[in-house]
């Protein structure tokens, strides 16, 4: 999967393909038909512009009233002029492509008006009330997909929900202007965090990314009404009490030192991320020593352990595994001390410890 990443970016950025998706569905576009039936009269794009009229008559049933597409079956046409030349658009409309029917009977005047309409600036989406901050039709198409696939965990507005974090505050989202990193997470999932991988087309992925970025922009415009946890929220503890807990009942000093491994920790992490790592550092390494039947001892980083198989990565990086019933093994897992503390903490202990760690700059 990783090898095609470069290709994927290319696909996302250059080929929000009119043709490649059109052929994928063979069922009736019921949803689209309903939208047409219920579209209010005097739609912004119907009326005087003959290109808009032609679009409404021939194209909107599949590509949406606002050219936003109806994914996954029908691609958005917004920005089509960045992906296809006028000639190619003309040819596609005239002859069809894949499952898309051709419209050979359009006269030259209507055809050129339609192509002109398709290549002018993006339509306004002010009529689409519920998501007034979504700036583009692609994002609107992505919203539908986001609701189906992502909203349960990340919230319908991408601002967090059941088990999934607020994406509008995600460092990965904020830093990923091209969408490459988001696309990778969508396609490959995050098995460690139980996020599944999604098998979506490039067009679908890019529409979801457009929606997430639109939500990010909306969140920046409206601070205050946000979910998620701000650094300022986590300042209720007492530094001195936290230091005492660290040195005393917490037992933190058994493994950690404010001048050693934790020196400057508050410059490396902050806010919720620091608190989560403080409570349980995910991905912490364990070591294992395996003793074979012949008495040979092999040590390394624990790579896998279930009831039946133990595996390690040795000092040169080689993966080695054994059936658990053929060897003896001993796992050293210092991170377990964090799990053992859960039943002992008060909420004040957590807040105080957090206050103390934030002084380690």
């Amino acid at each position: 999967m990783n090898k095609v990443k470069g290709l994927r970016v290319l696909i996302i950025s250059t080929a929000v393909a009119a043709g490649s998706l059109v052929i994928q569905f063979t069922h009736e576009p019921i949803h689209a038909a309903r939208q047409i039936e219920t579209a209010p009269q005097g739609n912004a794009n119907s009326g005087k512009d003959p290109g808009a009229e032609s679009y409404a008559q021939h194209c909107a049933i599949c590509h949406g009233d606002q050219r936003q597409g109806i994914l996954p079956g029908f691609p958005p046409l917004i920005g089509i002029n960045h992906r296809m030349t006028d000639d190619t658009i003309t040819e596609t409309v005239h002859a069809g492509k894949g499952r898309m029917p051709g419209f050979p009977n359009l006269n030259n005047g209507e055809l050129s008006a339609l192509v002109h309409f398709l290549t002018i600036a993006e339509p306004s989406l002010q009529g689409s009330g519920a998501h007034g901050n979504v700036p583009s039709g692609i994002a609107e198409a992505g919203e539908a997909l986001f609701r189906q696939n992502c909203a349960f965990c990340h919230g319908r507005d991408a601002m967090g929900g059941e088990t999934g974090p607020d994406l509008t505050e995600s460092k990965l989202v904020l830093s990923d202007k091209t969408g490459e990193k988001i696309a990778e997470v969508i396609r490959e999932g995050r098995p460690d965090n139980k996020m599944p991988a999604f098998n979506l087309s490039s067009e679908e992925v890019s529409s979801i990314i457009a929606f997430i970025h639109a939500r990010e922009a909306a969140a920046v415009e409206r601070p205050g009404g946000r979910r998620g946890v701000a650094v300022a929220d986590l300042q209720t503890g007492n530094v001195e009490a936290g230091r005492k807990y660290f040195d005393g009942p917490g037992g933190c000093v058994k493994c950690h030192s404010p001048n050693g491994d934790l020196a400057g920790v508050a410059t490396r992490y902050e806010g919720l991320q620091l608190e989560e790592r403080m409570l349980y550092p995910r991905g912490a390494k364990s070591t294992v020593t395996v003793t074979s039947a012949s008495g040979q001892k092999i040590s390394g980083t624990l790579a896998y352990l279930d009831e039946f198989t133990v595996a390690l990565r040795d000092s040169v990086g080689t993966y080695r595994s054994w059936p658990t019933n053929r060897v003896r093994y001993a796992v050293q897992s210092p991170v377990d001390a964090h799990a053992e503390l859960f039943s002992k903490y008060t909420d004040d202990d957590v807040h105080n410890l957090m206050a103390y760690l934030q002084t380690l700059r």
Partner: protein
Amino acid sequence: MLSRRFLFLRSYFDMKLPNNFLISAVALAIACARPLFSQDLENAQLLNPTPDSWPSYHGDYSGRRHTRLTQINAQNAGNLTLAWAFQTNQPAQIKSSPLLVDGVLYFTVPDNIWAVDARSGHLIWHYYRPATKGDHIGHRGVAMYKGWLYFTTPDAHLISLDAKDGKVRWDKTIADVEKGYWTTMAPLVVKNHVIAGVGGDLDNLPGYLRSFDPESGATQWQWDVTPPTGTPNAATGGMTWMTGTYDPDLNLLYWGTGNPTPVLNGAPRPGDDLYTCSIVALNPDDGKLAWGFSVSPHDTHDWDAVETPVLVDGDFHGQRHKMLMQTSRNGYFFVLDRTNGKSLLTIPYGPVNWSLGVDKQGHPIPNRAKEPAPDGRLIAPDEGGLTNYRAPSFDPKTGLFIVDAHPSYSIYFAKPADGAYGWAGADYGLWGKGVIEAIDYQTGKIRWSHEVGAGGSGAGVMTTDSGLAFTGDGYGNVLALETSNGKTLWHAGTGSPMQSSPISYELDGRQYIITSSGEVLFAWALPERGQSAAKQTSTKLH
């Protein structure tokens, strides 16, 4: 990818086959005075399922997920082998529990039903209805009555299809997807009622349960979990997204209800928020409430009480009771008298730190100091709960209630800026692990526990009369455990953890165990006689 998309409705069913079968079936039926191949799943079969069937979500009305079959036992379980595997060739994980009727398995993911030959794993038909709206979080399976299947969709429709070929008979609306509802659950058929619930706690919407006429699809009744949206000081929510159970003697339907909304902010909905996070008993003929028991009064942690309400008749401290048991997502194990909803036992089955104990009526007392707060509260269990929708199992011989538990901790946040709509806060899981636990139902004591890995497993449990408990670990191993002590007798690596609950049936004298992992359905069985002999020969050669 393209081929998947084209597969929207394809029938592989050869009409000659059932006709021939019907003729022989009629002859056999006369000979045996019992329908062997009917295509009609009658009420009698739902009440007393035969070993060659798994005709409803839980296998029978009791929700015990226990099979009487004994061919696979502690002595031979180590020989279990793959009978077949069915690839769905699509990306959604299978979270459904299959039905098995007349030798055909029916199972689902969102927008999809497969009918698969239960002996060979060959496709009979596939139904695909892509919904462009509604949440596609998962799908639990279909219901069947007479020759018809009942299927819920992400956009909250109930669809009746011909079990023979997947042709749609009718399509009704359960709820309005535009308001934020969706459906995932396998309906429950009781007498001439098809009972379906709803999902949707991204919005402040009332949950309800609705009964449909199996022939016409007309609504027969609706029971509302909460008052309507906008009622002052009242919760909405209480989604009804898991299949309930039924006691034919008492003629009562038992159902678990989901969390209240707004989810993490309890301030706008003071009090117990009835009947969210509750177990309710309803009359299946008119939907009237007989009793309700609040499992998580005033929940602020998203702990739906929809886990299977398991029905057991038996001794409780010397007295015979008609009991209802639930290992609830909030971390408590409940035993109720199901005739009246009175508590017999309420006790945690893992780490729980959000309550001040249990009141005299058996309800946990929520600790207000553990409600989500701006600076965070450390909470056990996490939002996924100490268990979730995958089924537990009750083993009548040992009296053990076996559940896939998930000891876990998390932090919960809520502040005024999070508002009072939908989620209204944020929570973050910190740590969890999976443990299969065997609970003594009379005391709540854990008789044995079997660790199944960091993070948790997600597999349901099914027990057998031969003393086996089938489940899975967090690494993708299917496990056969000894019910009495939790020891592993057999395992098979499938590559992906099970997110569903096993079922079992016997066809042509061969017992099958069906599990799923990822997007693949697996059938396990003992080697057939020929294979068994071959295996012995090859063993000798070594």
